[in-house]
């Protein structure tokens, strides 16, 4: 198409075809924006507008019925984000992230490596490993709850899974998250492993690499983009986790499992909504910083192939 246009342009005098091309470009840009409209509408209605409203609410106070608001200004952000509520919630969220992300990633990687072998019947194991993807957080949490129930659970007597103890409750909830996310991690890592060309693995065998060296020198670097993606996604999952906490501990005992999201949820009465809004904006900021930080640190060590 474009070469035809250029060929034509060459035959005529210069200025006229040039104008023709510019108008065509404008037209193409217009069409491009037109294609963007549907997603802009959806993002606008369900993300940009609510987010703007959240920021706005954080600048106000609200009465008990939510019928009247009063401007209090940016100082409220400083007070709340500097207060104990935010720092305590953030600390629980960060602990939750530290418990879930590395453990989930390592377990998913191990299962995927095990399932990547071409053994007979491996599909069955792949299905079992991946099964948590198909169960909802609520269902999985209830199953977990039963498993660690002190009266009937198989793991009811394990002290570090005790939901009644403030020292172990957050870890127990984290473990349930690790288990629930394992299917996703497993599937994505397995896909990453299957994308490695056989010939590269064979070349490393002929180069004399044993299984351990091969894993760390060849396999892991080649699936590094996948692992980076998972670190970011699992971190966001961890910072946003809510349902498993609500079902297993409702934030207890003694507030030891009140993550930032759970605190935001507890501040839903109209009078407390502005505080909740500020915590939500704070959580957004933390999530963004964590994700950007991971990208910046890990990106340098990640190879994306050709």
């Amino acid at each position, binding site marked *: 198409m474009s070469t035809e246009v250029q060929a034509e342009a060459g035959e005529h005098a210069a200025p006229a075809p040039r104008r023709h091309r510019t108008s065509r470009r404008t037209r193409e840009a217009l069409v491009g924006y037109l294609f963007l409209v549907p997603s802009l509408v959806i993002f606008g209605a369900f993300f940009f507008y609510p987010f703007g409203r959240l920021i706005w609410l954080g600048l106000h106070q609200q009465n008990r019925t939510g019928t009247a608001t009063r401007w209090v200004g940016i100082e409220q952000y400083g007070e709340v984000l500097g207060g104990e509520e935010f720092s305590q919630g953030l600390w629980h969220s960060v602990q939750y992230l530290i418990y879930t992300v590395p453990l989930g990633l390592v377990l998913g990687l191990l299962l995927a490596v095990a399932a990547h072998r071409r053994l007979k019947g491996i599909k069955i194991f792949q299905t079992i490993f991946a099964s948590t993807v198909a169960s909802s957080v609520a269902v999985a949490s209830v199953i977990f709850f039963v498993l660690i129930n002190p009266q009937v659970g198989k793991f009811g007597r394990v002290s570090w899974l005790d939901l009644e103890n403030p020292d172990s409750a957050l870890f127990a909830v984290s473990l349930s998250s690790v288990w629930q996310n394992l299917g996703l991690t497993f599937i994505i890592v397995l896909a990453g492993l299957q994308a490695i060309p056989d010939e590269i693995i064979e*070349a*490393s*065998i*002929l*180069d*004399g*690499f*044993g299984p351990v060296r091969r894993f760390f020198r060849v396999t892991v*670097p080649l699936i590094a983009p996948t692992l980076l993606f998972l670190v970011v996604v699992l971190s966001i999952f961890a910072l946003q986790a809510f349902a498993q906490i609500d079902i297993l501990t409702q934030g207890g005992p003694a507030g030891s499992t009140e993550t930032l999201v759970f605190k935001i949820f507890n501040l839903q009465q109209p009078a407390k909504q502005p505080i909740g809004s500020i915590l939500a904006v704070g959580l957004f900021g933390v999530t963004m910083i964590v994700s950007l930080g991971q990208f910046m640190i890990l990106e340098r060590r990640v190879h994306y192939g050709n």
Partner: protein
Amino acid sequence: MSGVVFEGVTKRFGEVVAVDDLTLEIADQEFMVLLGPSGCGKTTALRMIAGLDDVTAGVLRIGDRVVNDIDAKDRDIAMVFQSYALYPHMTVRKNVESPLLTRAFPVDDGAPRKLTGEEREKRVKEAAATLGLSDLLDRKPGALSGGQRQRVALARSIVRRPEVFLMDEPLSNLDAKLRAQTRVELVELHRRLATTFIYVTHDQVEAMTMASRIAIIENGRLQQVGRPQDVYERPANLFVARFIGNPPMNTLPALFSRNGTASQVVCGETRLSVSEPGSAADGQAVDFGVRPEHLTVAADGLPAEVKAVEMLGHERHLVCDVNGAAVVIRQPTEGAPPQPGEVLHLSADPAEVHLFDAETSERLN
């Protein structure tokens, strides 16, 4: 220094027989090309030498050692893959160095030991210099052209100085011009290294131009082994006859007739004389074959209708129809070419007629 010997080697994948009772002796320092169409088993044969596929039955030796049960990493071979299989996350230097990391090598005729970093660097630089990669050592494969990647793959294989080099269609990802150039360089490399090269390809031009001997494989079975010229001049069966040569040999069904000392093939209404009939019997159904350069246009002979004329500059090919079969004639470019639709009469050089048994496809003369 060592050769490679297949003794009745068979490889099965489930029900599929990839390599069928292969017996082949590859001499030390030979440039052996395993040639055949895709899926014929040639790559499987190569992978068995490498140790990437195990041997179902038979004996495989590298040098004096039976390697059936020897791990790939413990065989003294290096392999260049069709896709080059470079590590994309490593620099050229690291890629070339990788075969040196885990193995022990004899240094200065002493006992084998692992190389120090300096010794490795020295070898990497030598290999890189041999292949003209010295300026590219710090680049990653993604920043290299196809030809450069191919050289890195070669450097990675020569750096460990193996007894046997295995190459699996290493030129197939290069463009035609680079391929022709690299062919010459590979022959040169083979001469300089003076080791055994085993080279798999489906391209008979590569086989003819580089091999000291060619092994032609079809359906997992060895069809013929020989020097390129021998295989070209005396193909052992119809498959080899049609596979080697470009354009391929013309073959037509005919009857053989022996009349006293005069031997002829009867093709339709036409009789063509044969000077060396071999074991062909009077009245036997044969396929007779003539290479395009051994057919000439004559006053009478096999009637052929010209379908197309291909001009190649230094020569031209006449694509003709003879009794429904395509026949190609190679001609010098002198004189006006015949026109499509024209009917020519072809005669064949009696000394250059190949006879194949119509039933077994085996060579008769």
